[in-house]
């Protein structure tokens, strides 16, 4: 499995990496395994080196797993309902125009160096995230248009934006906007990667040795957990060890032999063996954009809607899931994964219909050529897809899609790159499609990816109907109005086939039977406060 360390938009695209919870019917690990016992240790195998353990600077799953345990957020999101619930903030108000957000912070929380978590800390954090810019790619994009935070009193802070920012409240549930002490926020970004992370979370960073291990210990006086958690007070586990084990087969072996208690990034072919072997395979679909092909409409061939629609219809999603993935995965049923807020089921649009796909290409003037590849004006219908190995089964999935497209006379060329270079190459635009996903619980991920002023993976012109829908969903605070605009955007992406969703990324963990209550939070990353071992 590949390493994951990235720059700004890649962080978004790759935020999903490789990991998981329930939601799609998988079992909850060891739930109901008796009465929780405090004490003990947990060793978790990561699929890649975190690279940096600062939650505000990170976007890939293997960095988030350890980082999430170090910080608390202002709010939390219920993975079942999508509701925003109290965590560090006991209550909040959002102005009607979605421009100002007032948080009332609980008065008993402290950072691990003893300094209080108060309105001043909120201001210092948000100011420093904006200052970090691209180093805090996710956080600074959530804070786009940030005007400032005012400290109304010791425990009340108001965040204001120049433009309406409907997604901001859900953004405060993320690790990216988790709060760090001044001892950390005052440091330059490089010094916050391996050390010096002072948060208010249930665990405290002990040590991070790159490419080896992250060690964290329990905070004994912790008493301000999220209102969603199963118990109050300090975490059950005394110590967490995250070991870096890049090969999926070796990770599975480490779990089987008892060297580790849980692993991330279980390879699809290893799942069945773990299930039979007395281990729990726990999975949850990542919210956000499913894995799929996104067109670069500045290129001649795919600027034609007929070609994009034909590609959308030619892909047999179920076959991809059945062949290269596992029963934990499901085919995409919309522009967004079904665990995303405001998701709209559009599975009727995502059918597999090669006859219709061929008809569309015939009509558009692409005639079958001598070697089976369609030709128009002497040009073969060869499309290049840029991809990186941020998720193990990518290569197999793309090779299968390549076969499926060849059946309708489309020649898909795979152009692989390293994760590190992906963003730069994507900006060059020398490809017809990109392959990727993006994890986020808020539908605003669509705006981040497709809006003309932001990542704009499809290279859409300004002022398109999609752009209007995307801006509209972020301009209102009312959930129903947002859902309506988000639904319109999801529909438009598929009608125009700007993006061809294929399968929903699922986080899959392998867990030993003595580990209980290892929970997924709303974005399908792990939360270890309630986890215990017997």
């Amino acid at each position, binding site marked *: 499995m590949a390493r994951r360390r990235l720059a700004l938009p890649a962080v978004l695209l790759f935020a999903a990496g490789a990991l998981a919870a329930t939601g799609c019917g998988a079992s909850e690990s060891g739930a109901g395994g008796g009465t929780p016992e405090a004490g003990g240790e947990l060793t978790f195998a990561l699929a890649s080196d975190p690279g940096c353990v600062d939650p505000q600077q990170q976007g890939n799953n293997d960095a988030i797993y350890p980082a999430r345990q170090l910080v608390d957020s202002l709010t939390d999101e219920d993975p079942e309902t999508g509701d925003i619930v109290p965590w560090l903030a006991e209550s909040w108000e959002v102005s009607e125009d979605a421009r100002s957000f007032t948080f009332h912070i609980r008065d008993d929380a402290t950072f691990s160096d003893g300094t209080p978590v108060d309105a001043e800390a909120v201001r210092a954090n948000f100011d420093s995230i904006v200052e970090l810019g691209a180093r805090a790619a996710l956080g600074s994009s959530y804070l786009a248009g940030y005007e400032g935070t005012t400290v109304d009193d010791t425990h009340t802070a108001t965040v204001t934006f120049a433009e309406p920012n409907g997604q901001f409240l859900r953004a405060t549930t993320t690790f990216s906007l988790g709060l760090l002490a001044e001892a950390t926020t005052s440091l330059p970004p490089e010094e916050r990667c391996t050390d010096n992370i002072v948060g208010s979370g249930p665990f405290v960073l002990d040590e991070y040795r790159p490419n080896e291990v992250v060690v964290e210990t329990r905070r004994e006086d912790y008493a301000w957990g999220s209102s969603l958690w199963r118990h109050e007070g300090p975490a059950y586990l005394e110590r967490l060890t995250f070991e870096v084990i890049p090969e999926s087969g070796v990770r599975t*072996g480490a779990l089987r032999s008892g060297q580790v208690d849980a692993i991330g990034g279980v390879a699809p*072919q290893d799942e069945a*063996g773990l299930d039979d072997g007395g281990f729990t395979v726990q999975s949850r679909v990542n919210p956000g954009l499913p894995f799929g092909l996104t067109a670069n409409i500045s290129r001649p061939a795919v600027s034609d809607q007929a070609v994009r629609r034909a590609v959308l219809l030619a892909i047999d999603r179920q*076959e991809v899931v059945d062949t290269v993935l596992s029963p934990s995965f499901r085919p995409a049923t919309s522009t967004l994964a079904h665990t995303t807020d405001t998701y709209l089921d559009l599975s009727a649009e995502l059918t597999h219909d090669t006859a219709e796909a061929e008809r569309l290409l015939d009509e558009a003037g692409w005639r079958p050529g001598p070697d089976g590849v369609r030709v128009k004006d002497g040009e073969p219908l060869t499309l290049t897809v840029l991809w990186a190995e941020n998720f193990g089964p990518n290569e197999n999935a793309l*090779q299968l899609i*390549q*076969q499926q497209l060849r059946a309708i006379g489309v020649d898909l060329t*795979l152009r*692989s790159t390293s994760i590190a270079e992906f963003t730069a190459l994507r900006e060059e635009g020398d490809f017809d499609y990109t392959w990727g996903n993006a994890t986020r619980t808020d539908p605003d991920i669509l705006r981040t990816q497709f809006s003309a002023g932001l990542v704009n993976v499809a290279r859409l012109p300004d002022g398109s109907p999609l752009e209007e829908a995307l801006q509209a969903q972020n301009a209102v605070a009312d959930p129903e109005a947002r859902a309506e605009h988000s639904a319109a955007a999801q529909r438009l992406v598929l009608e125009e086939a700007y993006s061809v969703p294929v399968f929903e990324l699922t986080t899959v963990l392998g867990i030993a039977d003595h580990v209980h209550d290892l929970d997924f939070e709303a974005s399908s990353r792990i939360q270890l406060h309630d986890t215990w071992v017997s």
Partner: protein
Amino acid sequence: MSGRAVRAIAPALAGTGGARARRALAFWARRPGLVASVLLIATVLTAAVAPGLFTSQDPLTGVPADRLLAPSADHLFGTDQLGRDLFTRTVHGAAESLRATALAVGLGLVVGSAFGLVAGAFGGLVDDALMRVADVLLSIPALLLSLTVVTALGFGTVNVAIAVGVTSVASFARIMRAEVIRVRDVGYVEAAYASGVRRPTVLLRHVLPNASGPVLVFAAVEFGTVLLAVSALSFLGYGAQPPEPEWGALVSDGRDYLATAWWLTTLPGLTIAATVLAANRVARALEAEETQDREPLP
């Protein structure tokens, strides 16, 4: 390779008619390993040129329902994770892997020989400069150098071949230089100069042909090593892009399935190992002939 082997070995079996044939038979009969190696190399070369002789299946399109089937009569090497026949992919991969190997050896041979020829013929400062460059190249571990070059050039079979070829330039240059120095002052070369032939012509007509024997043998010796290096880079993902089969990439694709489908790594891996061993055996035979053959200089 096999053709050259026979040609190089034949002169050692001087004689006429029946006696010659008997001696040839005895020569091969005493070396069953060499016979097997020559046959294997011939088979691999045939596969590279005409894969259709060995298999009629499609190396790129599989039947997803038939994925990860163990080796059987229908699928000699089993099928991979997308239901493609692994034997077909290995056969078609031979072309890709051998093309890269030939290109890399060719590059080392041509560029290295040119360096060695110039260094040996001109001597002095030119020699010093070129040979110091060669020393520097030799001081860098070959795999590290290949990785650096291929990273700079980008992915692809040709780039892998160039990256591997670059690492052998220095060795070829050294051998060629030594041979040129051995030949450059002998009588017929001086005679050529004396009769007014210009230096470039002397080098190409008289020095190069008489210095090239050991260099060509070295090329044969390099073949196995280079095939291994090409496969290593392809294993690391620098070679042919999917779905094109290449030996190293086939081994790499299968390693996530070691626990469930051993044939995916084992059979292409054994193919590489067997080819490299056979190439080395043939090269050793050539080396022996070349040493025996070398006539004392006039």
